[in-house]
């Protein structure tokens, strides 16, 4: 291991080398903590990329129908579902984007969310799927929140943010310190022995995928629970983001607030005044489908039924290409289009984020997009594993093998970068505070930890 440099008058070279070690130290600890999560994200992400193909295969029987004649109106399909599931509350209807696609009715019954697949030509149910059992949803949950809800969401977000720290420190360490020599920087050295190979297996691919990795992190962050929500709110408030209700914010309410027909309660007699029974009643789902066709809504849309008397019908489609997105709210009593938000109506940031999301999911450019993203994911796995291997190989038995820490005074620039990242990503900032407190309160006071962590 290196010797401690602790002189009061430092030469330029010494200062540089202590900065180098400080950056290395941060890269080292951040890497060890973040690597397992990066591997999880990359593996689940690689699978999720191929969701369209995978679901097409495993749910083929539920997805595909044979066209024959005209489609049966949505209202009749829903009636059939009500007959089959008398106690269910119907929440959504999806007509199916093409002639061979089944339609879907979403419902909840006994606290379970089911999707019932209907043949729109026969009006009969093809089968049901418990949303809990959808394997790709599980993968997505794992990718987004490690299947443990909000805490998982924050952990993933933290790991993503710390990946930026890893990339910044990594790039600094990667920068050739002597005269530039492109092998070991841009190309692998395959026959210079195992330790050189191990080092190159980490450094070279890491450099090559840095841009892609940064892209995945930056496009993934806007849908994270904490940073993402804050970011989206600021963007929407500024007029440059998504319009409200597309990501953050509520749907508008119905403009019809009075003269809504009431339902008489007692059987046999009319127990409320006639004038109460008279009034507006909701437009039917068939009208909503007709409005969707008239307005040119992308055929992959889903209709979310109003949940309450003041609610609206929400039409939402997030197809493979961001340009086709739409979120439309329709007054449930008048059929008036209350909002019609498409990609063109998003603010600039909203459009960038929307495009980022479809690229992140690998749908924007189809197979090419999926393969490019897969390559980045595989690269991330390789870099995480080779980094881990580098550590194991160099690790002394009785300590972590981290580079010695240097005084904070030697790394002003680095500190500014860290604090900058901490402000930009509050979770990073928060974790920096936790690290700082742990350092002061725990590590510095316990000799074993001090030795082990090489403080």
């Amino acid at each position: 291991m290196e010797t401690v440099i602790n002189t009061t008058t430092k030469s330029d070279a010494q200062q540089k080398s202590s900065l180098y070690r400080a950056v290395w130290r941060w890269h080292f600890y951040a890497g060890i903590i973040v690597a397992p999560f990066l591997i999880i994200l990359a593996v689940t992400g690689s699978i999720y990329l191929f969701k369209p193909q995978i679901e097409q295969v495993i749910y083929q029987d539920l997805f595909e129908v044979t066209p024959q004649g005209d489609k049966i109106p949505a209202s009749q399909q829903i009636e059939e579902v009500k007959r089959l599931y008398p106690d269910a509350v119907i929440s959504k209807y999806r007509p199916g984007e093409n002639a061979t696609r089944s339609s879907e009715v979403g419902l909840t019954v006994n606290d379970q969310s089911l999707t019932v697949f209907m043949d729109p030509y026969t009006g009969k149910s093809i089968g049901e799927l418990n949303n809990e059992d959808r394997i790709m949803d599980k993968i997505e949950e794992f990718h987004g929140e490690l299947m443990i809800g909000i805490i998982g969401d924050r952990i993933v977000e933290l790991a993503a943010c710390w990946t930026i720290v890893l990339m910044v420190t990594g790039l600094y360490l990667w920068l050739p310190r002597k005269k530039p020599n492109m092998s070991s920087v841009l190309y692998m050295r395959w026959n210079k022995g195992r330790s050189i190979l191990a080092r190159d297996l980490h450094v070279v691919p890491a450099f090559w995928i840095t841009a892609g990795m940064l892209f995945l992190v930056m496009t993934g962050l806007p849908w994270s629970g904490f940073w993402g929500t804050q970011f989206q709110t600021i963007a929407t408030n500024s007029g440059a983001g998504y319009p409200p209700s597309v990501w953050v914010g509520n749907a508008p309410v119905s403009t019809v607030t009075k003269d809504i027909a009431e339902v008489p309660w007692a059987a046999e007699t009319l127990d409320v005044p006639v004038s109460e029974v008279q009034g507006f009643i909701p437009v039917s789902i068939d009208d909503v489908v007709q409005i969707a066709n008239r307005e040119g809504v992308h055929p992959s849309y889903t209709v979310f039924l109003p949940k309450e008397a003041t609610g609206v019908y929400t039409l939402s489609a997030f197809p493979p290409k961001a340009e086709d997105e739409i979120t439309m709210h329709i007054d449930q009593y008048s059929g008036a289009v209350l909002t019609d938000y498409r990609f063109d109506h998003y603010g600039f940031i909203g459009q960038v984020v929307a495009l980022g999301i479809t690229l992140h999911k690998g749908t924007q450019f189809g197979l090419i997009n999926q393969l490019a993203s897969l390559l980045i994911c595989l690269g991330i796995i390789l870099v995480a594993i080779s980094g881990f291997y580098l550590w194991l190989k160099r690790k002394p038995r009785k300590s972590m093998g981290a580079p010695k820490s240097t005084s904070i005074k030697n790394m002003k620039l680095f500190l500014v970068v860290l604090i900058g990242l901490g402000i930009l990503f509050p979770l990073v900032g928060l974790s920096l505070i936790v690290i700082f407190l742990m350092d002061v309160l725990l590590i510095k006071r316990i000799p074993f930890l001090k030795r082990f962590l090489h403080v």
Partner: protein
Amino acid sequence: MCSNKGDGTLKKVFLITIFGLLLGGCSLKEDAAELYLQEQPLHAEVVLPERITSEEPVPIKVILTQYGKKVEEVDSVEFEMWKHDDTNHATVEQPSELEEGTYGINKTFERDGLYYIKIHASKGNAIIMPKVQIVVGELSKSELEYLQKDLPEKEEGHDHHH
């Protein structure tokens, strides 16, 4: 904007910023929708007599507004009417303009029962089709049952009734 920049007594400012963000966060402005594309939906108010009986002319009026103002000239307005158990015999009538933004007909219902009027109105891209349920004379038993068919569980319903 929610972010602050800190310098000088770094740690303090830093801490305050972080906790400020964590605790307060940002909330969505109520009028944020005004920054984006806004629709001009038509709004219909239907005026009906308190009690409607069969075999006599009933004045049915609709007042069309757009953002609280009466609509000067609509592109089209039609009343589509049918009896609840006779959807095949829907009639369509063209109302006459009674005053600005107000259109009406005098309709004679031949029989008692549950009827529907669907008002189709449009002005430019704003198109609406509100549906009104009306009771002419007395309701039959089957019509009453029909009205109640979508009722959820009885007890639950009573709790929520207002």
